[in-house]
């Protein structure tokens, strides 16, 4: 198992190096930052000075190495647009995105598993069929459309919930949270639904398919033949066996929730890293874009790694070192 973990960590590092290269290449291929940062009234000396400060006069490999070194320490340089350290801006924006992703992730996971189990156990029932049909809509409608529909219904027509922003936030150290005020919580509802709906339907359909598969297995039949009650058959025997694929997908979905947050944050003007990234693209703010890319890929890779470890926790057949012999 240790060898496996080491191998996976090594692979992850490789992936990050490649992403780092892409992120770094953007500096040399997309636009000239110096043009963007200095106004019309610049002198040659100004340009030289700035190039030196930004390290743009070094050869490519040296610059890449310095970039990695700095990135590893969380230092992504100055934002071209705001002139402030990128890390500072990210840290400022991250709580908004993480809180949004957390809430919609929870919603997707628990809603998806619950609905998946329900539609599998009651697969001939009317309500299960209605849910399945509705979920098709959830999968096929684009995120921004769902967001706009929700805004139209709940903000414009009914006026119940705000259509943009985070509401009132409370500051705790470096973290700003919307969980502690009513307006913050209200502001969270629509973006969280918008962001989590697709993932929820995906998880639901996955859980349902896996569950139906497992319910056909001999050991389920045997459990029934031993008089085990339905609740236990469904939740103890069947659900556990559906969890391995569900965890894989859910883990990957968690990564994409943070990535997809870009669209939701744009629709709802949610002041998170996604919106920051979109704005950075408009202003060709390469350091911010590069930092965002790196951050997202670290998250993806990290989540993947955790998912792999979870396999071992769930499935005893993978824990080879536990085998007591006797074959």
């Amino acid at each position, binding site marked *: 198992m240790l060898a496996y973990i080491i191998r996976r960590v090594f692979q992850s590092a490789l992936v990050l190096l490649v992403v780092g290269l892409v992120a770094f290449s953007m500096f040399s291929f997309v636009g000239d930052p110096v043009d963007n940062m200095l106004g019309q009234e610049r002198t040659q000396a100004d340009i030289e000075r700035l190039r030196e400060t930004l390290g743009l006069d070094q050869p490519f490999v040296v610059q890449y190495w310095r970039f990695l070194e700095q990135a590893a320490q969380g230092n992504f340089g100055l934002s071209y647009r705001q002139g402030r350290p990128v890390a500072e801006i990210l840290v400022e924006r991250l709580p908004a995105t993480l809180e949004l992703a957390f809430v919609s992730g929870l919603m997707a996971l628990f809603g998806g598993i619950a609905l998946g189990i329900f539609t599998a156990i009651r697969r001939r029932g009317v309500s299960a069929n209605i849910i399945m049909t509705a979920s098709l809509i959830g999968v096929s409608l684009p995120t921004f459309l769902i967001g706009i529909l929700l805004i139209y219904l709940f903000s414009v027509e009914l006026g119940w919930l705000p259509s943009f922003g985070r509401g009132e936030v409370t500051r705790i150290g470096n973290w700003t949270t919307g969980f502690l005020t009513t307006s913050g919580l209200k502001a969270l509802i629509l973006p969280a639904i918008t962001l989590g709906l697709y993932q929820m339907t995906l998880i639901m359909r996955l859980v349902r398919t896996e569950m139906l598969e497992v319910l056909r297995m001999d050991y389920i*039949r045997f459990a029934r*033949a031993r008089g*085990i009650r339905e609740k236990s058959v469904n939740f103890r025997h069947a659900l556990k066996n559906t969890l391995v694929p569900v965890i894989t997908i859910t883990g990957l979905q968690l990564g994409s929730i943070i990535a997809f947050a870009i669209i939701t944050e744009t629709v709802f003007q949610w002041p998170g890293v996604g919106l920051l990234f979109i704005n950075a693209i408009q202003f060709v703010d390469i350091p911010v874009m590069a930092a965002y890319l790196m951050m997202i890929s670290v998250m993806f890779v990290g989540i993947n790694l955790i998912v792999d470890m979870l396999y071992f926790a769930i499935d005893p057949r993978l824990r080879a070192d536990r085998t007591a012999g006797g074959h």
Partner: protein
Amino acid sequence: MTDTPVLSVRNLVVEIPTRHGLLRPVDDVSYDIEAGEILGVVGESGAGKSMTGNAVIGLLDPPARITSGEILLSGQPIHNLERSALRRLRGKKMGMIFQDPLTSLNPLLTIGDQLSETILEHLDISQTQARKRAIAALEEVGIPAASARINSYPHEFSGGMRQRVVIALALCAEPDLIIADEPTTALDVSVQAQIMALLKRLCRDRGVAVMLVTHDMGVIAEAADRVAVMYAGRLAELGAVREVLTNARHPYTAGLMASTPLASQGRKRLRQIPGAMPRLGALPTGCAFHPRCDHAQDQCRQEPGPTLDRCDGRAACWFPIGADTKEEAQA
């Protein structure tokens, strides 16, 4: 022991509605199993053996359902019980063993968990007592070092050992009836004999009634007390093993015997029954076996096969083998 048989199946009919009409995988089947007795059930694939077992234990897959007849467990009717009442009987009063021990155990639960869970479901005892009983159950089916292995997962056992675990699971709440659906088919030949010996011993020691479904005439000859031969959903023949094996009355049984190598028969040439069993949707008129029967007469082609009573409760045949000609003429 009382005179009431543990299991009594009376004129059982199972039907499956399909787009092409109503199928009857089990058609008017009746038999009893006494305590301590092993009833072997044989017949070609698709004869309705598993369907009968599933009907008894109440695990028919919809749309299949019991449409008439009775099932009595120790004299009590169970065919009309509601689901939860029937569930409480499963495991406690009747258990089932399936063909494949590799897939019968939940791979993610330890065998101790699966045993305790079953015991706690049916008996009002504490967790620790349940654990003790689980270990005892494993010891009884011959798992060595049971107390050490109780926390093992199914994949840590070999096929034969797993089937022992399955038997322990089926028996751990001490049911009166066990339905064993081809319990040895998926096992090595050497392991098969051990598992059969185990089943026989448990049946004798505990007075459990066993319905043993199998394709293997050797297993029947070795283990069963009586044997029921099924053909196309109906009972073809029913009787004591020695009688049926050496002196078959139904031509189908005779054909089955002739096509099975048995030590007791010496080196006789094996003969196949010509043709194949008809599909349920396309049963011939008259006796379902007549197209394959050497002895078929006009009556067999026109009238449905008789009930077992026709031949002393032995064979469902208009012209059973060995019946004298006078009887035939009367019919």
